[in-house]
């Protein structure tokens, strides 16, 4: 399985998916067609867990702002992570700027929704 790197654009984040278990999404997220844009990432993560997951998986999410369809997509992404959290050591770092209270709230909402996931709120 190969690493997957998707470059940042003005409206989509940089995505790094590494087979060593380091995953990151950094930037803004309001694609024209969200589900289509993230399809390769979702495909990759499913394959990663079914074939060769690393001992620990760390997901760093640093999204400044995002539209509602991205919110739905992140939910579905976390849902996949939660499905595999019993057999894998998964940590999610929700990284936000100290002044960005709306990003903090979004992170808190995900924590409420995914009690079985280890989500840390990390202030920059």
């Amino acid at each position, binding site marked *: 399985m190969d690493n997957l790197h998707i470059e940042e654009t003005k409206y989509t984040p940089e995505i790094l998916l590494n087979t060593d278990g380091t995953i990151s999404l950094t930037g803004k997220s*309001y694609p024209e067609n969200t589900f289509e844009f993230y399809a390769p990432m979702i495909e990759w993560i499913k394959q990663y867990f079914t074939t060769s997951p690393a001992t620990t998986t760390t997901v760093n999410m640093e999204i400044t702002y995002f*539209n*509602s369809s991205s*919110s*739905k*997509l992140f939910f579905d992404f976390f849902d996949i992570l939660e499905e595999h959290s019993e057999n894998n050591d998964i940590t999610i770092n929700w990284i936000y700027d100290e*002044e*960005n209270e709306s990003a903090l709230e979004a992170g808190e909402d995900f924590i409420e*929704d995914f009690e079985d996931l280890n989500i840390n709120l990390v202030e920059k």
Partner: protein
Amino acid sequence: MDIGQVQDLVENDGIVFLSYGGFLSQALISGMTEALEKEALSSDISMGISNNIFTIFIELAQNMMNYSKTQHKDCQEIEPGGLIVVSKDEESNYYIQSQNIVSIDDKKKMEPKLIDVTTLDKESIKKIYKELRRSGKGTHNKGGGLGFYEIAKRCDHIEYNFKKINENKFYFHIKTKINTHNKIKKDK
């Protein structure tokens, strides 16, 4: 669309710093969002409020891009477009509003959500948002059906109306207000 309508929309709301009428594309939305980022940087509103403004703007603009049924008078082709205006008043309340043409079927789909977001309190809106996001009930090929709830979570007031054009078409106008009082940037 008549650009003169911009004046009617913002009559009492002070300074307009972004207005656009016409065809909408992702590239245009992204360019306008960048312009809003510049405006926000030069004002003293917090990053959280700024991001709420960008998100509401993006939701409204992408809604119009995906659903607007604007039709040229002289041709049959339907293209996505409408009118979007961002303004602020003397007390630094921000207003984001849009107007576009929708079909009667879309009106019927939008109305229950619009009634929710204009009548329920923030806690109830958040609850519906989270339920919809979890269940995926509103999910369609373009999104999660969460847009109006996303907007409601991030603003202080929403008004909307539908104005009949003919049996099948309506002007849909929505106005959102973001209050920035007591939310100014923290001193570093």
